[in-house]
């Protein structure tokens, strides 16, 4: 398997299946780990970094993983490929942009990614489509055990797993659930969500973008605290609050359908219309409109269009994906044209009733 093979597919978290998949995009858990006998990254020499990379690569490739694994040397990658992995949520932006020996291992289903020499020596991440923290924890815990069979992690009897930043010490665990909350945004109730989360020290963040652009009403909820609570407790805390937010979002959707059906239908239809006919379109506008269309599909306002197809468009229309898919480097203006072409082709094909695009 090669990196280019990934581009055409859409990966686990875009499958659009799993519990509550109309609102919950993905469930993700990552663990931060460090080798006991090397300095953390800030104090590591080039040689240390190389040795850490060697040790972890050997260990990772020694795991009997289900299916094929792709091991990528991030330092050697071209800029567009690094950006591609960021858009895919397989590496962090920091990992893409830093310097020195570093890598990522990805299984071919894109369920897990293991970043080597990011902020910590190892970051093990497992992601699943929909709201499914239980199985994600099982998988990430198992991966952690398998790697630990042959390496010794930095661990302190009282403080737990030691990390480069004290904000991650203890479990080293970050649990994140990504939600699509367009109705809460339209009805201006999303502040309610923030208030409820604030009380229990959870963080809410928007989906990453190119620069600071708006990204289609996606919000990620995650734990802030990593010390003093067990992994199960941290997972349960998020597991308890997500259904409450899902419920708010459903109520807001019901409200929109009952109280302003014409407005909602109009908003969704216009968004769909623009996406199917535009000749040049920015990534920002695309995300904004796709968000309305996604909600419209979930509410039955747009027949013959599936959630997996919409999820895929969110990712495939991002800058690095567009360039990988078209096979050429494109500047912003050309990307906007290519993006519009891509959207026309896919949306007019998906919907059998639409006019066929000749291109």
């Amino acid at each position: 398997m090669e990196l280019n093979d990934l581009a055409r597919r859409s990966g686990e978290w875009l499958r659009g299946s799993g519990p509550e998949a109309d609102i919950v995009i993905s469930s993700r858990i990552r663990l931060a780990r460090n080798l006991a006998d090397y300095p953390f990254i800030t104090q590591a020499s080039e040689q240390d970094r190389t040795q850490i990379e060697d040790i972890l690569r050997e260990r990772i490739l020694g795991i009997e993983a289900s299916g094929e694994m792709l091991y990528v040397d991030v330092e050697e990658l071209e800029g567009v490929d690094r950006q591609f992995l960021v858009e895919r949520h397989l590496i962090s932006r920091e990992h893409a942009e830093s310097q020195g020996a570093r890598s990522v291992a990805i299984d071919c289903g894109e369920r897990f990614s293991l970043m080597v020499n990011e902020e910590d020596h190892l970051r093990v991440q497992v992601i699943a489509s929909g709201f499914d923290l239980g199985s994600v924890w099982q998988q990430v815990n198992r991966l952690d055990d398998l790697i630990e069979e042959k390496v010794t992690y930095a661990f302190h009897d009282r403080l737990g797993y030691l990390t480069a930043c004290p904000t991650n010490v203890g479990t080293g665990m970050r649990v994140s659930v990504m939600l699509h909350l367009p109705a809460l945004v339209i009805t201006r109730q999303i502040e309610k969500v923030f208030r409820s989360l604030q009380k229990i020290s959870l963080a809410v963040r928007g989906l990453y973008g190119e620069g600071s652009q708006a990204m289609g009403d996606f919000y990620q909820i995650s734990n802030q605290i990593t010390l003093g609570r067990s992994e199960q407790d941290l997972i349960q805390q998020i597991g308890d609050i997500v259904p409450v937010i899902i419920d708010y979002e459903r109520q807001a959707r019901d409200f929109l359908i009952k109280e302003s059906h014409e407005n909602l239908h109009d908003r969704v239809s216009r968004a769909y219309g623009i996406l199917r006919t535009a000749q040049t379109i920015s990534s920002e506008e695309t995300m904004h409109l796709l968000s309305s269309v996604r909600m419209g599909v979930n509410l039955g306002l747009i027949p013959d269009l599936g959630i997996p197809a919409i999820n895929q468009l969110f990712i495939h229309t991002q800058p690095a994906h567009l360039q990988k898919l078209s096979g050429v480097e494109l500047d912003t203006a050309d990307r906007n044209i290519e993006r519009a072409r891509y959207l026309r082709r896919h949306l007019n094909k998906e919907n059998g009733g639409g006019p066929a695009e000749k291109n």
Partner: protein
Amino acid sequence: MAMKCQKCDKQATFHITELTGGKPQELHLCEDHAREYLTSSGAEPTNTSSMAAALAQQVAQQMAVGQTAEELAELDQQSCPVCGITFYQFRSQGRLGCPHDYVCFQPQLEPLILNIHGESEHKGKSPRRAAGSAKRTQLIRLRREMKEAIEEEDYERASQLRDQIRETEKEEL
């Protein structure tokens, strides 16, 4: 009673409490600015570089309480015997240099950790392999000393250190 957006004249419809790092910070924004604010962070739920900056600020504030300038300057110069990081380096970058820092900077880190997590004891998974032996941190120090010896072109010492590293590594397997 309408509140204005902190960044423009529109009505603030979003009231965000930012909990990343330091003290909770209240933000009152219009929809556009809230959107901009919420999407300006990275893929990680907590943007790591802003997190490190907030953390560094928190350390600095905490240290400023009840300490004289000389005491602060002295503390800043303290360094870890294993990896060589100074306390000043830690508080300006928000990242530690090695596992031993949690031991040697314990008096400074303890209140910081309590402040971040509200707890000071790990509950949860432990690795099955025994970690934290003194030999492991010793390896970090030996490798650093070997690198320094090479930089100073003291090859005799470098080769002594290399032998010592190999021996320690063998014992650890």
